[in-house]
């Protein structure tokens, strides 16, 4: 077969151009560290990476939310802990006032102590975290309890929902935890203070059972909050691990194998040099040169 000069050199030029284009692509991958930058590089990997990236974004957001939730729940537990301490103090006062050995003046002093305990419980019940009144249920913009113990909150409480559907309750129905002016922990403390002030030992004794019930109620709430805090911590830790794993997966989809790409660049450089040498040598072996 006859090989025309223009065909031969055009073919050679095309080969050199194609090799340099391939080398340019490989060097671009080495420079960026990515083999998939735009959709056409690898449509399937691009879509997979884009979807994983949004998942990572959601998980990172979940992590931040879970971490914030854990902080809020821990702070809430701190408030309940103070309420529990006040309750313990009030129970000790009730036991002391119920045995009938105290003078009227001593009963009045104990009543004042119980009033302080009540104030502490009300402060805990009106605990706010970053401006949110945690025990207001769904009404978190203002303090749920007034100084008389009347409850102005409402609703079961608000929860945050994470991207995987998991929920963490952040605000609670304060009335079910602390009662109100007419009952529950607050109401019982008010009754106790009144009974102590009036020196009514039988009435003081009658509050002990209610106070013990309040202890159980408070402990139960703290257990719920503690479990939620633990759950938030687990979610946060899992989210971090999951985000790391997914980021690795994204890397596998779009990152270049540096060792492989370096070797490929080396091979393409050698190929390009060989083609240029071939073109140079081919130009010298023309019959024109022989005849000359």
């Amino acid at each position, binding site marked *: 077969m006859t090989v025309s000069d223009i065909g031969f050199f055009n073919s050679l030029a095309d080969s050199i151009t194609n090799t340099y284009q391939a080398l340019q692509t490989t060097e671009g991958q080495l420079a960026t560290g990515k083999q998939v930058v735009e959709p*056409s590089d690898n449509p399937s990997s691009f*879509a997979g990476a*884009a979807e994983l990236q*949004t998942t990572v974004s959601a998980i990172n957001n979940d992590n931040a939310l879970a971490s914030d939730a854990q902080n809020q729940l821990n702070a809430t537990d701190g408030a309940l802990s103070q309420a529990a301490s006040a309750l313990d103090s009030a129970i000790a006062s009730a036991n002391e006032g119920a045995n009938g050995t105290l003078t009227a003046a001593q009963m009045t002093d104990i009543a004042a102590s119980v009033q302080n305990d009540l104030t502490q419980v009300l402060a805990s019940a009106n605990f706010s975290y970053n401006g949110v009144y945690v025990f207001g249920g769904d009404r978190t913009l203002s303090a749920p309890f007034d100084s008389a113990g009347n409850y102005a909150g409402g609703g079961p409480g608000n929860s945050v929902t994470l991207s995987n559907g998991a929920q963490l309750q952040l605000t609670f129905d304060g009335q079910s935890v602390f009662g109100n002016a007419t009952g529950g922990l607050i109401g019982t403390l008010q009754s106790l203070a009144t009974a102590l002030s009036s020196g009514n030992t039988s009435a003081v004794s009658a509050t002990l059972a209610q106070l013990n019930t309040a202890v159980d109620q408070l402990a139960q709430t703290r257990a719920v909050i503690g479990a939620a805090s633990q759950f938030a911590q687990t979610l946060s830790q899992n989210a971090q691990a999951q985000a790391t794993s997914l980021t690795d997966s994204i890397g596998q989809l779009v990152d270049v194998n540096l060792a492989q790409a370096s070797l490929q660049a080396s091979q393409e450089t050698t190929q390009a040099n060989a083609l240029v040498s071939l073109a140079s040598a081919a130009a010298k072996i023309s019959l024109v040169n022989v005849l000359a």
Partner: protein
Amino acid sequence: MSVNLLAIGLSGIEAAQAEIATTAANISNADNPNYAVESVPLSALAGPQGNSVGVEVGTAQAAQAPFLTADINQLSGVQAFNTALTQTTQAAQVYLEPGSGTDLGQSLQNLFNAFSNLSASPTDPATRQAVIAAAGQFASLAQQLSGNLNQTADTALTQLAPLVQQVNSLSQQVATLNAQITAAGSNGGSTAALVDQRNALVSQLAGLIGATGDASGNVAVAGVPLVSGTTPLTLSLTGTIGGPTVGVGLEVSLANGTVPVPSTSLGGTIGGLFTGASDILATRSAVDNFTASVATAINSQSALGYGLDGSTGNDLFLIPGGNGPIALNPAITVQNLPAASTAAGVPGDGSNASAIAALAGATGLDSSFPSSTPSQSYADIASNFGSQIANAQSGQQQAQASLDSLNTLAGSITGVSVNQQLTELIQYQQTLQAAGRAVQAASDSLSFLLTQLTY
């Protein structure tokens, strides 16, 4: 006999000279891609007794590979089509890249994240403002992406007008050459150079619009004639650029009216531009449908909620025509953003915000992707567009490889090998010298005869 010997030698000299001249022309055109190697047809001159009395020199003829030429032209059209399609669509896909600044997928996830945050802090003004900001950014990016894709398609289509002018200019030249070839042929002259020129023009038309030519010089595209014999037909651009679909087309003016040229059947650069613009606009439409679908779902849930001010029924997005591009509802404020799902008075309820955030995992919001979540749907739109580009790139590479092979094959038939020409030149020089010797021998013989007659 002596007189015949002179004539025979002279014809040999003429033949060798013609061959040397043709070889010189071949060598001088060795780098001309539109030149087909020429040769001189020789035939024996018959004497009265049927014996050869010399050589007759014909008109130089160009080597031809008509089937290969047709295939090369077709592949040139395919290659140019895919090149234009690749370049056009690549200019658009940059807007779908994560680092493009119009990463709609990430922006939407940011919005869902903001609603998750709102579910945790439904009354916090900063968190509520963050939701409005995220919604505004999503709508803004949706508009930008839609506009950028539209602009890229329009830019591609604006390249058509000068290309159509080129087509008409080439058609005119082909028609003129057809007339010249006809005239030269009827006069018995050589048409090789003219046919070479015409082939080159038809090849350019193939690359421009995927036109095909026949042996008579007629040229057509998608079954519609561009050149009929010596008559060039005018190709025109119709319609206007802009709008949601390709608003321009092509037509050819014939004697009895105009004939539309189906743009979907075009090859070459013009066909690539049409297809590229169409693909981009289809992607833009898919993006608009996607954003409108997501915005509709968010609005539906949003309208069920209550704001801090107790208002309800508020849409977060405006969806003009129900099909985008979407916009943030300017009436939405920190106060009326509906995060709560229960009636006014319990503004700490973030369950409606949770319900909106949960849409991130809902499938089928965009009916074009019934089993995909929003992020999957958008990734699929980008991926589908990327696949179209990758196919065009692959088609371009395959056409180039096939073109290289065919050009090499055609070059072996019609191309010039300088080495071969030099070898033949030596041969023709020797033929010339031999023919000269024959004339010299005839001359010597005649001289000897004259000498004998004198003495």
